[in-house]
């Protein structure tokens, strides 16, 4: 599991933490200003002489900048080595690929575990509430700092897909094409409800300490693990769970107790406990809150098409998975209809799979071929070889 696929070996071309000076604060939707802002990122491939081949990849809720390089905490390969690598749809031989840790995250970009300059201690709940537009604003600052005027493509999955739509609304002149995979233009009541379960689990953990756990030298690991377990169910389809585990038991018989009798229980517990090693509970609260607050149409009198009228020159590709019930095909269709209404050039396909939302990370040849076709034609129009 530790070995990197050879396709990606040596492709990481740079990265680190971009620290914006104190006189360049990040202005937040809440009215607050965040300073200093730090954005942690990784790059793959080389920026060409025209600076026209940059691709910004936007990760999901618990993802990070380790797109196609070994994760420093888990030692596992990057989260999208299925798509990023030599000969793959996003190819470091052709593209300059940037992936940054999201605002509010816990892998180096400013978030609730960063040091609050006012106190010298971690922000905790003193960290301002952030939104998806805030996240995109921070990404735009990084892209500008890297000297890139126009991105060839902005590609996002899940939370990242929502950010792609926000990019199209806020910076249409700075993107040539946009790919939204398993995203949505708003969080539904069910989405918010599941997140509330996760947040309630974290806050119910006595080690959460009102968000000030770091100062106390503890971590709300139990609460965060439960949050992950509940969320993980939403990433899988019922069919996939049934296929993987059915009612299979861990051992020969029932324990007649509350041990992990069923394989699905063991799997979920493992998902929960391994998650706490690499994720911060307060980051989970802040990022899920940003997702819940997301409703792209709200700023356009409830008319989603309004968000895209300035993006008529952007080439859009929207992809959904048939068994994804977290951000379903209906949500993607809603986006596509708005793109049509705005007169945007859009492609959309629902990929037939029983793997649920998690199909983003799994073997899906139809996803690869859709990405490949869309990116190849965009590259031709962009004049990339």
């Amino acid at each position, binding site marked *: 599991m530790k070995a990197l696929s050879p396709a990606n070996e040596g492709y990481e071309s740079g990265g680190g933490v971009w620290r914006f000076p104190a006189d360049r604060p990040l202005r937040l939707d809440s009215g607050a200003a965040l300073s200093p802002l730090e954005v942690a990122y990784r790059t793959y491939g080389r920026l060409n002489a025209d600076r026209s081949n940059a691709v910004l990849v936007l990760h999901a809720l618990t993802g990070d900048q380790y797109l196609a390089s070994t994760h420093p905490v888990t030692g596992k390969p990057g989260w999208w080595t299925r798509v990023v690598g030599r000969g793959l749809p996003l190819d470091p031989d052709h593209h300059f690929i940037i992936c940054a840790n999201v605002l509010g995250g816990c892998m180096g970009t400013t978030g609730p575990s960063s040091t609050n300059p006012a106190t010298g201690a971690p922000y905790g709940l003193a960290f301002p509430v952030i939104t998806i537009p805030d996240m995109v604003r921070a990404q735009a600052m990084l892209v500008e700092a890297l000297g890139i005027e126009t991105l060839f493509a902005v590609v996002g999955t899940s939370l990242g897909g929502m950010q792609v739509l926000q990019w199209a609304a806020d910076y249409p002149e700075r993107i040539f094409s946009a790919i939204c995979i398993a995203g949505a233009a708003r969080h539904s009541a069910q989405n918010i409800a599941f997140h509330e379960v996760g947040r309630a689990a974290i806050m119910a953990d006595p080690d959460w300490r009102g968000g000030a756990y770091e100062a106390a030298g503890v971590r709300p690991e139990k609460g965060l693990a439960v949050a992950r377990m509940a969320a993980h169910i939403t990433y899988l389809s019922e069919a996939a769970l049934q296929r993987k585990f059915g009612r299979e038991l861990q051992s020969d018989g029932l324990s007649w107790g509350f041990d992990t009798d069923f394989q699905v229980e063991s799997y979920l517990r493992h998902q929960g406990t391994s998650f706490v090693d690499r994720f911060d509970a307060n980051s989970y609260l802040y990022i899920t809150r940003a997702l819940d607050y997301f409703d792209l149409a709200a700023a356009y009198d409830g008319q989603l098409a309004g968000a895209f009228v300035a993006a008529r020159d952007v*080439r859009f*590709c929207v992809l959904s998975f048939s068994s994804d019930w977290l951000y379903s095909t209906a949500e993607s*269709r809603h986006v*596509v*209809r*708005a793109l*049509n*209404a*705005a*007169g945007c*050039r*859009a*492609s*959309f*396909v*629902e*990929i*037939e799979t029983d793997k649920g939302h998690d199909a983003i990370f799994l073997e899906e040849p*139809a996803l690869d*071929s*859709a990405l*490949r*076709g*869309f990116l*190849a*034609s965009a590259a*031709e129009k962009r004049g990339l070889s």
Partner: protein
Amino acid sequence: MSGGMREDFREILRLTPAGARVLDVGCGEGDLLDLLTRERGVDGQGLEISADGVSACLARGLAVVQGDADHDLDSFPTRAFDVAILSKTLQQMRDPRHVVSELLRIADRAVVSFPNFGHWRVRWALLARGRMPETRTLPDPWWSTPNIHLCTLHDFLALTDDLGLRIEACAALSGGHPARFIHPRSVLENWRAEAALFVLRRD
């Protein structure tokens, strides 16, 4: 399809101005859109119900949305396109009248083709054999055909009259032969044409 280009494609290609904004409804694997893009440099958009069809289109670099004419035409703004094409699928729509009227809301011109149920082979099958026709253009048995709203050339003509549409051109299509321009009101052509292609405008 033998003999190279489909006869309706040839006509559509001829009728489409260079650089036009084109919507191809039911674009399949994108053969027509690809042809129009290469030969006419159109700004093309497709609508296709099957995921395999859309994937094939994406692989060819075409902009195609998975969806269907019955449900998705209403998302396009008025006069978004110069030409909207509905090639040999009108008879599969749930609400053909609505679809035709939508095509001419979102585009200045519509090119609609469909099999003619008035063709003599069809009439003969029903009259002589008393069975639902199975012909070259309508090959499926009644219980598995996707064609739920079949019409004759004159039925369609009545619909265009009803919707107040102007017929710019009408051609008879028969597999393999070049399209033949016809007078759509001709009684004879309602027997002769295997399939018909109409170029419509709002009056």
